[in-house]
């Protein structure tokens, strides 16, 4: 199976929001979770994750706090804000509509 070369625009934001909606995590954990959940299909590089996190924070969708992690390291934890939750709902709804439409088209039988 080939990897999609680039993530559909804006999809990374939605994935990150979704992951953070489950529990607050630090950057490294988010990258691990992305890899596990998408079974490496998406292949998000750690390089694009951090700018995305900062952008989301700047928009007020997620918020960051320095906390001690399980193994007692100071680490920056991100969590979803009220605004972020609304944004996630909106993006997810958009995504569902879009994917339903696209898969509908893809499933059309060729004459």
């Amino acid at each position, binding site marked *: 199976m080939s990897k999609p070369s680039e993530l559909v625009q804006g999809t990374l934001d939605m994935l990150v929001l979704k992951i953070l909606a489950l529990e607050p995590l*630090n*950057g*490294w954990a988010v*990258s691990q979770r992305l890899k596990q959940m998408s079974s490496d299909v998406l292949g998000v*590089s*750690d*390089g694009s994750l*951090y*700018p*995305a996190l*900062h*952008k989301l*924070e*700047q*928009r*007020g969708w997620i918020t960051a706090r*320095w906390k001690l992690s399980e193994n007692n*390291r*100071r*680490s*920056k934890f991100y969590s979803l*804000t009220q*605004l972020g939750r609304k944004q996630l709902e909106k993006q997810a709804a958009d995504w569902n509509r879009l994917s339903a439409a696209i898969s509908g088209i893809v499933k059309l039988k060729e004459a």
Partner: protein
Amino acid sequence: MTFEQWLYTLPLRLRSRFRRKQVDQELEDELRDHLEQQTKENLAAGMTPEEARYSALLALGGMTQIEQRCRDARGGNVIDDLVQDLRYGFRQLWRSRGFTLLAILCLTLGIGANTAVFSWIEGILFRPYPAVVHQERLFALAGTARGKAGPTPLSWPDFLDLQRSCTLCDAFFVSKITGSTLNVGERAEITRGSIVSANYFDAIGVHPVLGRGFEPGEDVGSDAHPVAVISYQLWRNRFKSDPQIVGKMQRLNNVPHTIIGVAPEGFYGTFVGWAMHFWVPASMEETFESGGYKLEDRGARWIESYVRLKPGVTRAQAQEEISAIAARLEANYPATNRGRAIRLWPLWQTPFNNAGTLLPTLEIMLAVVAFVLLIACANVGNLLLVRSFARRREMTVRLAIGASRRRLLKQLLTEGLILSTLGAAGGLLVANWCRHALVLLLPAHSGVAMYLPGEIDWRVMSLSAGICLIATLIVGLVPALQTRNLDVAGALKAESSGVVGARGTAWVRSGLVVFQVCLSFVLLVGAALLLQSLQKIRTASPGFSTTNVVQTGVSLISAGYDVPQAETFQKELMDRLRALPGVESAAFARVTPLGYGSYSSTPIAVDGYQPPPEEQTTVDYNQVSPDYFATLGIPLVSGREFTRTDDENAPLVAIVNQTMAARYWRDQDPIDRRLQVKGRWVRVIGVAADSKYESMRESPKPFFYVPLLQDFVRGPALYIRSAQPLQSISSALLREVDALDGNLALYETITLQEQVNRSTSPQLVAVTLVSILGGLALLLAAVGLYGVMSYAVAQSSREFGLRMALGAGTASMFRRVISGGLRLTAVGVLCGATAGLAFTRLFGTLLYNVTPRDPLAFGLALAVMTITSVVACLVPAWRATRTDPARVLRD
């Protein structure tokens, strides 16, 4: 980005702007944390430490690059830009200090004038009583009488009935201005105070800092409770802040009062125009008011009162309830209340203090200062245009190296913001200096200056801030519009041609000047109208002579005279005055014409006159002594004056004025006819010419006079007719009064002309303010015209040089510039005249015998405007004639 998001992330933005180092450090820590965890993972997967670290870095894609991308993700920072723009703007403005100073000065004048007027409106009209709670629900209460224009005071019993029956109101209270000669230690001075209801201090939420306020019941009875609360100022200045003041005795109007309390600092009572320094309960009214005991007399209307509505009650609802109560009173007490209603007045229209008097003036001032602000903005806009032309190259370079037009616009607006903020700061200072300026325009009465403070509170501040923002937009947008015309390539290529956008600029600049001329022309017309009207009102005949008559009075009530004592004194004083050399005649009257006191009024009946059902037959009258008409110079049309024999033992008589004679006796002679006054029949013995009674602006109304001896009052006003100067009459009078009783104080002695002048002081205030601001506007417009013309001359030096080289004389150059300036003026004047016709209608209530379209005023304004324009164009025209053709052609 939504506003919510913006607000939410504001702290974040501020942090990344002002804590840049810390933010960068955190970013680094965050990435290092990631690297270390990844390395650990890699080690666990069996890599060598070297390998593990390298692979982790590789996955991340290089620390520095990621850091930069993260910073970029944070996006362009609005605050960053703003700080940068501010810094750059200040530098730019500092570089051209002359321009900056002039611009700030213009804006300071414009914003300062506005803020000053706002502060007056706030401090005099909207929230006139500092320290009084809930002024937004406070209304003035006054009566009206059918067929009589203007409000009347209320009677005490009516007030009590209102207080008892009104359910929509929180509190009713009385506050009636009075005065007293106050002797503390060596010094005696006239002090203003209020006669109040006992609930006064509780109702307004003011609590004495020492002692107590009045207790319920202290406003009941005749001279029953001689107690007083004094003002903080009086306590500090005259009683040296005596901590033991409560319980001490102080004579007020010669009656010892116990001082029971000291009002808090910053509380000046509830009267617009004067600061109050003592308060006595209504039960003491006889001591301070003429007319005897009035607390049980429903027909004696003397009180000034206020009402505070319950929260949520509208004025209309309260008015409805109060009208219903008034109607009930009318039905129950027809003898005193027929045709009487009671009305609520917003504080700014309070009929019995100076709020109502100053309202029309301040309304006009609002429009006038808005004009001045617009003119100032136009001037600054013009200055900025010239500068933006000079900065054309800077702008084009910035555009060429990739600045967006939006960014340039932001820059220009920021510069405008700096200018207008500095202007607003200056304006607040100006307004602060002007807080007490209104008082300077109004005459002091009896040596006591009026108290009309402006108030600069958050409402005034936010209005000024709003104005500042509008000014910023106007001032910043004018040059910003010019950047639209910038042609990057063209401007960079051909800098010397210097005509980029020139045509557009010239058009905008001329437009601004026309606008300025137009507005200042309107103000000039306004000033001319008001000036003319003031001159007319001050020279108009009030129906009595204003020259060679002085007005004064002796304070008998405050000296404790009873009626027989006063009768003797007044008779003796009159004899002595008549014997004085140079005194032609002298007379007493209860109420002075055009003064503050109110006339007695009575329902009348006339034999053979059947009033139409809706007509009100209440007429005002005055109590006057023999020789009153001779002394004041009011001609008698027929019949005779009162004489000394018209006393309490003689048949009752009256003299009516012409309007009254014409209305009630039609074409017949009223002499020897009967007139019913307060239920008693009196005989008409004379008809006097009409005169002015309450205001110079009133139209003729029925009025009559009764002899003072048949309706006696203590200490009436005194008139002396004499050709001698005021000073010598007043010292002679003082000698005579002293000879009779050394303890008596004289009221202020003034000429009747001064009395007329005082009654027209609102007109004087309006004229002065509009003239000052009109002059200011004219000056600003002249500066604007001068700027445009000098710039035009500088721009067309080539043209002038060519013309001169071809043989044009300096005179024709001169004419060219002047006529150019006059053309702009002419267009402005034309617009101004059109606008003026609409605007001057606002002056209606202040004008006296002058139509708002008075051609003389328009002509005068035109002349002043033309002369000013010519003067403004002289220097540029002179410069045009100095053009050196040789040099211009060489360049």
